[in-house]
């Protein structure tokens, strides 16, 4: 074993379940999240993937990055197909036609596939109580098709379908609170995660996979292409989002909220927004308004956590 010059107290497992050679953009935060999720899930996994960035870049014929069984579904129905996979495995195991043992059934989709077009299928799957994990990679727009807005696009952000100008601040609505919608379905596990906190992310994925019943994870995924930020600071942005309150990390287990990490003082939101071109047009008063709302949302999470 090599002796480290300067050690780190904690190391991630080295075994990869997602091969290099995919076509993601340089600095893709979503791809880092996918790699970490795959490490946490391990070999006994079936991935059901909605159309989107990850699906496209990981499966250009004739190559694939996936080292576990993988299905590509339509944009809107990975949750429905995952329900089918989960039910089929149950039946086949009962009939002795499928090996015994737990298989992680994991649906994956972007924020467009989850919060917008896929919400119906997801709602149905959660309501029926299937034993599966739904992972939403949130890069806050429809990035694969050229940066169009989704309901996960934050207030004031520029996209091609929420362009800022004299009459528009950019995105005119506040980010849809999808974790809250998942909690409202009374599912046993809901959590948010960020690739800047990789161990926390992997623990949450493991927890979600071990939970009996539906589990929903929303993972913050910086997109340098869509956000107009430098590729090399994607992880830094993923950290700043948490430290400023733009994307708080928390878990909800059987309805009980738990803020994963809190800070004595939230960082100023400008630290997070300045490196991103999609916020370039915002005025000082816009930023003050946004920061106030984000702080209120964090406070709400603090209150829910202490109850």
């Amino acid at each position, binding site marked *: *074993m090599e*002796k*480290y*010059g*300067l*050690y780190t*107290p*904690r*190391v991630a*497992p*080295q*075994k990869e379940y997602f091969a290099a050679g995919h076509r993601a953009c340089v600095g893709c935060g979503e791809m880092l999240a996918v790699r970490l999720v795959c490490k946490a899930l391990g*070999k006994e996994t079936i991935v059901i993937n909605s159309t989107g960035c990850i699906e496209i870049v990981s499966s250009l014929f004739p190559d694939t990055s996936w080292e576990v069984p993988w299905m590509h579904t339509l944009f809107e129905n990975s949750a429905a197909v995952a329900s089918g996979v989960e039910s089929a495995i149950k039946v086949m195991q009962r009939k002795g036609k499928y090996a015994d043992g737990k298989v992680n059934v994991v649906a994956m989709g972007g924020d467009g596939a989850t919060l917008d077009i896929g919400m119906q299928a997801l709602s149905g799957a959660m309501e029926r109580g299937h034993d599966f994990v739904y992972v939403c990679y949130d890069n806050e727009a429809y990035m694969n098709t050229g940066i169009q807005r989704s309901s996960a696009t934050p207030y004031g952000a520029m996209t091609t379908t929420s362009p800022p100008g004299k009459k528009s601040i950019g995105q005119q609505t506040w980010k849809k609170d999808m974790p809250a919608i998942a909690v409202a379905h009374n599912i046993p596990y809901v959590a948010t995660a960020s690739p800047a906190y990789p161990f926390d992310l992997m623990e949450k994925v493991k927890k979600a996979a071990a939970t009996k019943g539906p589990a929903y994870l929303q993972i913050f995924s910086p997109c340098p292409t869509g956000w107009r930020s430098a590729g090399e600071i994607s992880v*830094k942005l993923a*950290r*700043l989002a948490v*430290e400023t309150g733009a994307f708080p990390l928390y878990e909800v287990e059987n309805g009980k909220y738990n803020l994963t990490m809190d*800070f*004595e*003082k939230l*960082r100023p939101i400008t*630290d997070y927004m300045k490196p991103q071109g999609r916020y370039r047009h915002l005025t000082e008063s816009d930023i003050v308004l946004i920061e106030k709302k984000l702080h209120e949302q964090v406070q709400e999470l603090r209150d829910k956590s202490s109850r």
Partner: protein
Amino acid sequence: MVKITIDGRQVDAEDEQTILSVAQREGIEIPTLCKHEAVKPLGTCRVCMVEVVQDGKSRSVASCIFKAKEGMEVKTDSDVAKEARINAVQTLLERAPNSQVVQDMATRLGVQDVSTTSTSTEKCIQCTLCVRICEDIVGVSAIAMVKTENGRKVAANPKNKTLTCIGCGSCAYACPTGNIEMIDADGIRTIKNWDGKFEIAKCKTCGNYLAPQVQLDHIKNTYGIDVDVAVCRSCSA
């Protein structure tokens, strides 16, 4: 290079390569508990036992430390292997009867009944990963296995006059059963197992917590890196 057979498959192994690493390369799963990528294997937990047949003789060995030799036949799932693993995990159950991790491993290995009448809350399975990491990687040898009336326990190394622990948490993160209790609260990190209390240094710019001050001092003293201007990664350029 040597040729061995593993579960009926003939494969190549490097000289001195352990059976466990060959198995992993071949996609054959062998359970482990005391294995950690950063330190040399020691074969203390023994749940990685496999059957090896050589020169007509069969025996069970710990695959994490047993090296491949020409013509060896390895069976990772035979009755001999399974029995050896069950014996190993039952020893661990005796040490930590109520540990969820050990119970799950026992169930996975085929032990039918993991219930116990013991009220012990002991989690240490005496795999010595923590001690090895502190000695080999961190380099402060702050902890050691110490004999007590209830068996060996990890505690502050009696060879040190004062506690040399720097509160880095490497032991806590490596422990397979979560035996080392490390809690950060109100700017103080507490490691309950040897009553270590460490003040956590703050980032000079934003005030977020960084790492225990003694850990930063250790880094400065050992590697010559200037930690007096320590800022967190979000504040750095």
